[in-house]
């Protein structure tokens, strides 16, 4: 009997095994052939193991980096990379994260089936990240495993349903009604960019960013790993110079201290590359299963997709957003240093591309080129400040030098972190935003979609 329980707890306690089992169930539900069930389950299992291996690489890099930065300046440098914090968290909380990934999906499915918000969230990596942020923040409250699973699934699932609904009017406008919405959990930031664009921007038609001709000189900004390495390098090298050769030499062994810093900076990107490969493997098994299940249970739902889905509809806006976000980010960094804040967000430019680019598309939809630039700049500034705040709140968990990046993760994290002792209040706030999303659905989205279909509807006599 003891052996039996040991087997059971080993399976349920090990995220890798658990994720493999989840993938297995998903594949069986899709009636996949037996060889696909076996390889798919093992691939998901392997993906989790690879993610853990990447976490180890990142930790060996971040631990001395944090000490050297503290030596050079009086701050802790934090690299906001969802993949990194998720991989680190999975070592300790992996099983709960896997549970909430499935629980959150189920809540999304139920809400999409029974409420007016018929949106199915299909960005697998963001389902994992929202599960991670709720898991770690709920554990900071000292809750038991069952409460963490229930609250985490509820909060994740509600957020994954309401955010796509809030993004829908902007996406509809930007894509001319392509029929999808965003499933990218920086949506509160994108909505902010859209609103700022409306207030501070110009005429969205006359000054549309897509009319600008930039040429093709900006290929560098799509190389996410290179950007990440370079961003870390700049801050790390400056800190190392200030810390002094001797201080760095304590860590660098036989290598020249500055050569070592150069290698270490790109070791971070290398670790993220490993994590990405792992995430890619299990997300690639989970998302088709989620999609297959949701198509059966919630027909005609609108898919909520990863943010680059809107990029082909606004290439120039993406570029403006990139620059706007970067300016905001550097402004936030300067402010954090100026007020002697103990945590400084390292500008890795990764988010300038993804979040900045999407903020640019939203800003352009409401305020043309000026809307794209200013909207993204405001988001870059605010987002970097709240990332630093969240890192401070997570400090009790002892994660080194990395934090969540995207606005919704950060806001959900801060919400649980600051008000978690009154759990009903947290849930009430989340539900209140959900109700706002329902209001947006009825008052904005549906009339908008109806209007865009009008000429067709007239002949079809849709009533």
């Amino acid at each position, binding site marked *: 009997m003891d052996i039996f329980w040991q087997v059971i707890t080993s399976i349920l306690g090990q995220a890798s095994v658990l994720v493999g089992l989840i993938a297995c169930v998903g594949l069986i539900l899709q009636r996949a052939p037996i060889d696909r069930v076996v390889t798919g389950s093992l691939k998901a299992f392997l993906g989790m193991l690879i993610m853990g291996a990447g976490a180890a690489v990142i930790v060996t890099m971040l631990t001395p980096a944090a000490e050297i930065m503290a030596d050079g300046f009086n701050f802790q440098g934090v690299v906001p990379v969802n993949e990194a914090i998720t991989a680190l968290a999975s070592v300790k909380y992996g099983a709960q994260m896997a549970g909430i990934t499935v629980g959150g999906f189920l809540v999304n499915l139920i809400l999409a089936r029974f409420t007016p918000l018929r949106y199915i969230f299909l960005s*697998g990596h963001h389902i994992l990240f929202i599960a991670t942020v709720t898991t770690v923040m709920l554990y900071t409250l000292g809750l038991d495993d069952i409460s963490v699973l229930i609250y985490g699934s509820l909060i994740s699932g509600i957020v994954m349903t309401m955010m796509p609904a809030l993004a829908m009017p902007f996406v509809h406008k930007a894509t001319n009604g392509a029929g999808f919405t965003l499933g990218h959990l920086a949506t509160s930031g994108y909505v902010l960019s859209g609103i700022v664009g409306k207030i501070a921007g110009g005429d969205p038609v006359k000054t549309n960013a897509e009319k600008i001709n930039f040429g093709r000189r900006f290929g560098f900004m799509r190389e996410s790993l290179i950007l990440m390495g370079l961003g870390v390098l700049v801050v790390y090298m400056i800190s190392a110079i200030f810390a002094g050769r001797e201080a760095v030499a304590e860590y660098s062994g036989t290598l020249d201290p500055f050569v070592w810093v150069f290698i270490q900076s790109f070791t971070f990107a290398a670790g993220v590359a490993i994590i990405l490969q792992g995430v890619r493997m299990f997300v690639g098994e989970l998302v088709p299963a989620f999609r297959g299940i949701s198509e059966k249970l919630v027909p005609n739902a609108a898919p909520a997709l990863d943010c680059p889905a809107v990029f082909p509809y606004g290439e120039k806006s993406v570029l403006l957003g990139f620059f706007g976000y970067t300016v905001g980010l550097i402004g936030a960094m300067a402010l954090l240093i100026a007020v002697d804040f103990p945590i400084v967000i390292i500008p890795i430019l990764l988010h300038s591309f993804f979040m900045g680019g999407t903020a640019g598309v939203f800003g352009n939809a409401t305020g043309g080129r000026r809307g794209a630039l200013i909207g993204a700049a405001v988001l870059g500034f605010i987002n970097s400040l709240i990332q630093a705040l969240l890192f401070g709140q997570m400090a009790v968990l002892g994660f080194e030098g990395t934090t969540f990046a995207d606005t919704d993760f950060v806001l959900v994290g801060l919400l649980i972190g600051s008000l978690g002792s009154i759990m009903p209040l947290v849930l009430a706030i989340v539900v209140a935003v959900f109700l706002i999303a329902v209001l947006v659905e009825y008052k904005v989205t549906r009339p908008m979609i109806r209007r865009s279909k009008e000429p067709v509807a007239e002949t079809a006599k849709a009533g």
Partner: protein
Amino acid sequence: MINIMTVCGMGLGSSLLASMSAERALKAAGVSTDAFRIETSDVGSARRGDVDIYLTTSEFAPEVQEWGATVVVIKNVFDEKEIGAALVPAFELVSQSQ
């Protein structure tokens, strides 16, 4: 066996969606699942010798087109019809030349 690779910024979201749509589009066109393989990748590590067709959006097309393989450029990663219309002819061309 034709190797297809879908490419996006991180190789996590859009490329996975495009790969699901591509798989459905090819199946709908009557292509046997044994005749192709689809992988997803980020643009930084997608350049490989064994890929026959790259499927990507206009965002990444200029880079991918420099690598020499057939490149199919799409706009909506979730639109099976659009992807089918662009991918199936390219797929048939590549299969004939093999």
